[in-house]
């Protein structure tokens, strides 16, 4: 066993050593040797392509690139054509191309090729020219899929970090908008950008985030969701502590409130933090709707959270412990519908709840027409049949329907999934202890929320601790010109917003 282990280790160290040796080398004067060397690194890459040509000045050149990662048009018109016919020297300054770098390390060239650049080798030169000719397969900017809006912009992030930064900058053309770029991942380095308003965001928080990002040691970061797990404060909590959004306007709004955003290359989502529990209940549309409408919606959302976490629990508690709280008429109708059901209300609730969550997950992955069918078959027909077969009672179906609807009032999908998870322990504790259990359940949830801190900010802000002036944007959304302060929960350096006044009267 140990022998095997030893050999493995030896082998590993050998291979890494070899790899390092070959890539750490610099270019030599010999073009063919250089080419051979690079080609050997890409021996199993069928998309590795090269073009050998004589420049106008007469030197032998080779252009290397990975097919489909580069822009053929640019390659032909802006590099090959001028070099072969127009200019006399192969020189960084002479070639009419916007971004050219000069490198002599093989490893740099390798990285450049892998990220879509083209490399020009010239006979007798120890420096290679690297052209930014990237042209990844990209989709065009489209409207956000998971956060559709009625009144906001219809642009969502796409899979390119450069484009995404540009989208944000369009909202905030300000010198103070700072973007710090990091490369995360050993095997496949991914570009990660930390964005914040320099004079607003708290430098301590920014330093903390920077530190956390730099400490990540992984192969690669594929999606923003993976990054979250490395940087959030409480990875084992049910609640999300970092907002994932695909809307540039939402990011801009949060940046203005003093939070920071993180963009990850290849991912159409941006991260926003530090968030508090209650921030997840507002969306960017809230500020475009009339404030009364928004207030009403917000009340509905909090109510939805309450219902979605505990309505089945209340149903179970009432039926198994405190039937007294029902008026007689209601008691009779529930009793009549329950008499056909042979199961304990908890089992009944679990059957319906699990099927409802199943329908939800199933239809989320399916295309729209099929998803609708699944919803109808699952929701309507299954529910109806279950009642007729005497597996669940009528009232239970109503309870589950209301619960499921309430789950989707909550605008953030992460929070609504946590709510779905919380619902089950609540149901169990209600079936064991009735209303006392529900109350204790709420206390535990509250204690967990209050005990959490996200980037040094209490997660329960602004409700516990109470920050009254921040309540202007909690349940009741005050008119925008009434909200002068930036939220305390973002812990900003600059607490006042700029020029947030509305002239009163005719003055």
């Amino acid at each position, binding site marked *: 066993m140990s022998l095997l282990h030893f050999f493995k280790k030896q082998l590993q160290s050998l291979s890494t050593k070899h790899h390092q040796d070959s890539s750490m080398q610099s270019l030599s004067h010999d073009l063919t040797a250089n080419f051979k060397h690079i080609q050997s690194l890409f021996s199993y890459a069928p998309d590795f392509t090269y073009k050998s040509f004589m420049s106008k000045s007469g030197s032998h050149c080779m252009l290397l690139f990975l097919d489909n990662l580069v822009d053929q048009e640019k390659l032909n018109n802006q590099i090959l054509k001028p070099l072969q016919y127009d200019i006399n020297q192969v020189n960084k300054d002479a070639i009419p191309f916007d971004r050219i770098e000069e490198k002599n390390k093989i490893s740099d060239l390798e990285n450049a090729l892998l990220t879509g650049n083209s490399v020009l080798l010239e006979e007798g030169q120890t420096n290679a020219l690297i052209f930014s000719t990237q042209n990844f397969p990209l989709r065009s900017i489209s409207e956000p899929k998971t956060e559709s809006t009625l009144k906001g912009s219809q642009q969502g992030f796409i899979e390119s970090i450069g484009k995404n930064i540009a989208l944000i900058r369009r909202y905030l053309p300000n010198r103070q908008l700072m973007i710090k770029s990091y490369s995360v991942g050993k095997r496949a380095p991914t570009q990660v950008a930390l964005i914040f308003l320099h004079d607003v965001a708290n430098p301590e928080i920014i330093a903390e985030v920077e530190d956390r990002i730099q400490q990540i040691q992984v192969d690669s970061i594929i999606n923003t969701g993976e990054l979250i797990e490395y940087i959030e404060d409480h990875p084992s909590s049910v609640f999300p502590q970092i907002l994932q959004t695909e809307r540039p306007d939402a990011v801009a709004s949060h940046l203005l409130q003093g939070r920071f955003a993180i963009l990850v290359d290849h991912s159409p989502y941006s991260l926003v933090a530090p968030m508090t529990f209650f921030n997840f209940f507002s969306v960017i549309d809230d500020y475009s709707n009339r404030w009364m409408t928004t207030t009403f919606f917000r009340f509905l959302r909090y109510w939805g959270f309450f219902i979605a976490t505990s309505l089945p629990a209340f149903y179970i508690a009432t039926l198994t*412990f*405190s039937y*007294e*709280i*029902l*008026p007689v008429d*209601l008691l009779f109708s529930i009793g009549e519908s329950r008499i056909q059901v042979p199961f304990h209300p908890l089992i009944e609730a679990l059957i319906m709840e699990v099927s409802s969550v199943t329908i939800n997950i199933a239809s989320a992955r399916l295309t729209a027409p099929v998803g609708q069918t699944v919803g109808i078959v699952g929701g309507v027909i299954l529910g109806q049949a279950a009642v007729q077969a005497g597996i669940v009672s009528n009232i239970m179906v109503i309870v589950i329907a209301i619960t499921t609807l309430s789950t989707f009032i909550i605008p953030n999908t992460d929070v609504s999934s946590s709510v779905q998870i919380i619902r089950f322990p609540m149901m169990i504790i209600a079936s064991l*202890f*009735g*209303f*006392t*259990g*529900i*109350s*204790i359940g*709420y*206390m*535990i949830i*509250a*204690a*967990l929320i*209050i*005990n959490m801190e996200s980037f040094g900010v*209490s997660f*329960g802000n602004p*409700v*516990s*601790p*109470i920050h*009254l002036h921040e309540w202007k944007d909690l349940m009741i959304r005050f008119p925008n010109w009434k909200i002068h302060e930036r939220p305390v929960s973002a812990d900003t350096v600059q607490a006042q917003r700029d020029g947030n006044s509305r002239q009163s009267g005719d003055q």
Partner: protein
Amino acid sequence: MQKYAYNQISLMQYIFLLYKTQLGIGVFTLPRIVAEDVGHDGWISILLGYMLSNIVSILVIKLMEKHPDQTLYEILPCFFGKWVGNLINIILILFTLIGASIVIFGIISIVQVWSMPKSHQFVLMLLFLVPVYLVTKQGVRNMSNYAQFVFLFTMWQPLLIMSTIYDAEILNFLPIFSEGIPHVLEGVRGTLFSFMGFEMSFFLYPFLKDKKHAIRGVIIANTLCLNILLSVTLICFSKFSQEEILDFIWPTLNLLKTIQTPVLERLEIPFLSFYLPVVLISVVTYLYISLLGITTLTKKSNHIPYLWIVLLAWTILSIFYTPSINTLGIVSDWWTEASIYIVFYFSVFLWGYSLIYHRWQKRGLG
């Protein structure tokens, strides 16, 4: 010196922590207790109890102002020397610990009587200790955040109690001072148990960030508490006759039992369940303060091991010993008696002593 700075609380947090500590199981029995002691003038005793509490609270703050970075546990050895000071500290620790125990065993017995008569005390104890542990382990700041949450979460409860006022009988309050003023004064003693909790300023003051407004904070907390106690008592008196109140052990819950809405009836069941957070926050405060005393005495910085010991002791106690309502009543009477000495007499004494002590010290220096 800023030992408590890492856990500082704002004035708002301070108010709510005091207020929610004061509001415990006293609300359920207060109308009966004052009816027993005073009769239908009992509400005046509550007002007097409030004033007395305010006076003592102000003295406590005045005392603490001279020692802004120390809790009472650290002041006492300063005042009286190491041995006597620590002896008093031990008494204080026992006092707060027994206070916490009375409240938690009391609420368990109330829950058992009103909603879960067949459940074993041990099971409920385990259930209640989960949130108690989660909150207590985090220290003062999270406790006060929690108190704020509890305040918001239970804001509907005073409204619910108010809603029972519709058939109020004003004649029940006449004549005022029927048995004379001395009789009303005697009843003040019985109301003090319900105001108990403001003495936490002794220990919470060093945590307060905005120390200038400490007096205002305590008075607001007392007033909020008075608001609840007085309205509960007034409504109980106006709805029930004196003879009837004496017949109820927990008149407040009987009051809630009368509410009937089209959707829900028997609101005392959800009320009692959702009043639990309020009661547990006063358990948490008393428990934490006694743990703070233990850590001060043993010069440790971490209170969680002691927390575990207390929780374990409570759990074991709840398995082997089930106090009857009577026993609880007797123990809480003792405790009230002790608290009158410790909180009222001792605070006043301490305040007077501190005046002399500081003058003496100044002279010694001069």
